[in-house]
């Protein structure tokens, strides 16, 4: 999870590195730790370290990790030559490694040679059927080919064994959302909430999915999860604030007139959300304030 302080640290390091202030290695380490996709930067600054023998030796044994990181970044930027060279260096150092065999397969995959890549992944899995990363690559490749259904199938099979892998659950949830299979996506998000109950963004996505599904019960649940997102982010998540408003309006439409008791209790929540939104807009984007008011008026929430 990328927290606020980590994001700030990353931005600070990034601007420092961009202005030639050094700290490239720390920057790359942080990217690796936070699992952020900044392939262009990784490629650029990783190469400056790797091409300088003095810098390269100063990081010691982590050199090889860096080669791997740069190789993947190069694949992402489609600089195949760099990737190939990195893999060659790694291959020389670790002739037997499975991890590098996977990198080689990824190179094939990036070039679009699906069949060769698939063969390589399959042979890797034959050797070690518990190789999680390779399983995941195969799913990703199916997705890249455009064969989403196959990706879903692979992923489901994978999750049958590795059912505590939240990254895979997240991928599956996102695929289901893209396929508009919201019920299944909701299940995946529940699983994510179970494994990391304090991450507000899962609550938020779950609420989004429930809101999209519609129906009174789902809307009420969605509103609750928007509320928990608000609480877990200290009210700083704009999307959750909007979500609360939308849910409140939708519920009001569905239950016209006959308000039940529970609603009355939490009546304040959306009016507070509206106030918070207005305050936030006033502070950060005053020119867009009329837009907000008109939107809220159309939801019949603004007084």
């Amino acid at each position, binding site marked *: 999870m990328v927290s*606020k302080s980590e994001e700030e640290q990353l931005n600070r390091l990034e601007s420092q590195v961009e202005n030639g202030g050094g700290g490239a290695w720390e920057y790359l380490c942080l990217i690796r730790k936070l699992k952020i996709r900044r392939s262009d930067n990784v490629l650029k600054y990783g190469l400056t370290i790797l091409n300088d023998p003095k810098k390269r030796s100063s990081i010691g044994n982590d050199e090889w990790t860096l080669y791997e990181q740069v190789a993947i970044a190069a694949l992402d930027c489609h600089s195949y030559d760099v990737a190939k060279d990195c893999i060659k260096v790694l291959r020389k150092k670790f002739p037997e490694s499975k991890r590098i065999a996977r990198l080689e397969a990824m190179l094939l995959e990036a070039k679009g040679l699906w069949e060769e890549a698939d063969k390589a992944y399959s042979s890797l899995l034959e050797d070690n059927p518990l190789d999680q990363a390779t399983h995941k690559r195969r799913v990703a490749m199916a997705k890249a080919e455009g064969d989403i259904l196959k990706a879903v199938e692979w992923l489901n099979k994978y999750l049958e064994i590795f059912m505590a892998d939240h990254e895979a659950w997240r991928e599956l949830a996102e695929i289901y959302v893209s396929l508009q299979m919201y019920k299944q996506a909701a299940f995946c998000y529940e699983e994510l909430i179970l494994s990391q109950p304090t991450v507000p963004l899962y609550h938020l996505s779950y609420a989004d999915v429930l809101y999209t599904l519609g129906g009174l019960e789902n809307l009420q649940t969605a509103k609750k999860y928007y509320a928990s997102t608000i609480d877990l982010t200290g009210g700083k998540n704009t999307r959750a604030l909007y979500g609360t408003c939308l849910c409140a309006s939708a519920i009001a439409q569905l239950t016209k007139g006959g308000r039940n008791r529970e609603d009355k209790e939490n009546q304040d929540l959306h009016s507070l959300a509206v106030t918070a939104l207005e305050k936030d807009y006033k502070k950060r984007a005053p020119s867009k304030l009329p837009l907000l008011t008109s939107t809220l008026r159309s939801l019949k929430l603004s007084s």
Partner: protein
Amino acid sequence: MTGLGFVVGVLGVLFLSHAAYSTIQYKNLLKITEDEFSGPPMNVVLELVLGFMFCMHAALSVPGKFQSIHPDSEENRVVSLPANMEFMIFNHRGRAIISEMDMKLKL
């Protein structure tokens, strides 16, 4: 910060060892003069107090900072999820952009 704290801690430990050493010397002296040991001399006590304070500082600063445990606090607030790197796909629009970076790994 941590580096300084560490140095202070080492200094504190050195103070303590020196205090031990001077006490041994002092006791040897007492043996010669055949006096009873009633307590360490003033400079040793002073050294001990100083060493303890240094160690205290080191013990509190070296192990790191406390981190807030509330998920909604300003520093812990999750702002974005990590990119799901293991599922990353390369078949994206970046393919259409001709890479202008003519970078090479020098072998």
